[in-house]
């Protein structure tokens, strides 16, 4: 019969508590490492991404909280189809579509026709590439918010569309930089079209230079008035040019426009429709 080594037994008895603690520490470290993966991986975009725990923010579980959708390339592709799907999934009630850092190609128009849609980026690292020659966003309902992102015109040839074509009211655009492309006609930035486009606020909007635009802002209503448009901290390079007449065009039926801390924004106010 094999005898137990009495020294080993003594050792085990004396150190079992330390061994148990060591096992617990190793397990805790492993758990912490795995939990850290359930976070946002900003570096990924596109279809080649393998699902990981980051998907948790795309799930209906998260969506059920606060009515927020997260366009990070998993459930919602980082392009116009993903953004439109995310807006649709808000269910027609106010909510937020978050665009984390990444490049979003906009090849087709995105229609916003429900109340209180907020489209929120992470700042300069969220870039919308406007590829379509038509309108990028058509905002037909109230209280739309577009904030904290870079918008770049990336069409390969002249375009006529708007970045935002607006007929809903009480919207906001803030902290957005919109860069036209050199060598082409970049079309329009913001078109407020008709009497429904009241009470819009544009703040901290930057248009760098060297681009040909039709205009940056157009307010026009041939029936009724567009009232109370506020522009604040608008920075426009004076090397941009405008085939429509000016950067800001107020044409027919415009009532009450304020432009505060506006630099380099040319303005043309006219009544071409005799309204």
């Amino acid at each position: 019969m094999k005898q137990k080594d009495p020294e080993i037994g003594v050792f085990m008895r004396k150190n079992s508590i330390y061994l148990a603690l060591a096992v617990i520490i190793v397990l805790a470290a492993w758990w912490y490492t795995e939990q850290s993966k359930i976070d946002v991986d900003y570096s990924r975009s596109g279809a080649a991404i393998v699902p990981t725990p980051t998907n948790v923010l795309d799930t209906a579980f998260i969506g059920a909280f606060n009515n927020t959708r997260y366009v990070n390339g998993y459930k919602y592709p980082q392009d116009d189809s993903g953004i439109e799907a995310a807006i649709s999934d808000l269910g027609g009630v106010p909510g937020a579509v978050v665009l984390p850092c990444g490049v979003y190609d906009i090849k087709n128009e995105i229609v916003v026709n429900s109340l209180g849609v907020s489209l929120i980026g992470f700042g300069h690292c969220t870039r919308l590439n406007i590829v379509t020659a038509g309108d990028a966003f058509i905002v037909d309902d109230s209280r739309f918010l577009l904030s904290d992102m870079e918008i770049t015109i990336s069409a390969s040839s002249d375009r006529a569309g708007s970045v935002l074509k607006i007929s809903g009211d009480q919207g906001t655009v803030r902290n957005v930089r919109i860069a036209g492309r050199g060598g082409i006609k970049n079309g329009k930035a913001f078109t407020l079209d008709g009497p429904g486009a009241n009470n819009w606020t544009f703040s901290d909007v930057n248009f760098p230079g060297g681009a040909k635009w039709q205009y940056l802002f157009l307010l026009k209503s041939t029936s009724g008035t567009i009232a109370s448009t506020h522009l604040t901290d608008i920075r426009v390079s004076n090397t941009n040019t405008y085939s429509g007449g000016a950067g800001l065009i107020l044409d027919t039926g415009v009532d009450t426009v304020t432009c505060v801390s506006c630099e380099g924004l040319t303005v043309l106010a006219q009544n071409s429709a005799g309204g």
Partner: protein
Amino acid sequence: MGGDVSKPASSGGTAIKLDAVRDFRFQGYIGSSLVGVDIGSNAKEVEISNTEFVSTSKQAIIVRSGSKGGVNISNNTFEDVGSLKNNTYDVILAEAGASNFRIDGNTFKSSLANKPRYLINIASGASNNYVVAFNNFANYAAGDIQDSAGGAGRYIFGNVPTPSMGNIIGAAQPGTNFNGGVGFNNGVVFRSGIAAGTGLQHVRSSTGAIGPKASVPVTVKWQVAFPDSSYTVTCSVAGGAGQANANGLRIHHIESVSPASVVVRVVNDHPEFPKLGSLYCIGIHDQ
């Protein structure tokens, strides 16, 4: 006049062209344009305030003839305007017939050889109801409001430095000028004399010796000729220093008035001695 707003301001455009608009407010920065702001005849309730105008080749602001009114140009800084040609362009031009505007609290600067013609030029015509006040022209060698308008309700006052720079040139006079009626609801205290002007003036003149029981017409010449004879005059006769024998003199009536003088008939009632006194006259013009 003006420019093409579709061009970059740096290549000679008009930065803000308001042909027709209602209730427009602008604050910011306008640099390197041909014309800064062009306010047309169908622009109403326009405010350009707290804006820095820099290196404007021609006019910084034009208020066009027939402007609908409610134009406020306040608290802006105009720096190096009218640089395209010396003594040719005005920093702010109100065209003939532009009415209902206010230009106040602005500061004007220039470090260039080419200076503006006028800092504020209100063209000849029937411009009504405007105020030009509290502007600072301290950085210019010559004071420069050209006010040639002839309408009603025109107020120009409080611009500095005044009056040494010839604050107003043209139709009005240096100094603080109220070109329309002024109401004081709580009384007025004059802490200095009232200098002779074509609206109100006073004068003292010797009667000369008048024989006993005789009367003479005394001509009193105004210090400054009134524009015409439409004024009210009142006179009294008294003895002054060395004229203690004025007792016995009285004014019989005012015989005639002309723009430059008034003729007063003075009677000596003393039965025996000639008398010498002074006439004190005040004249107030109708308008």
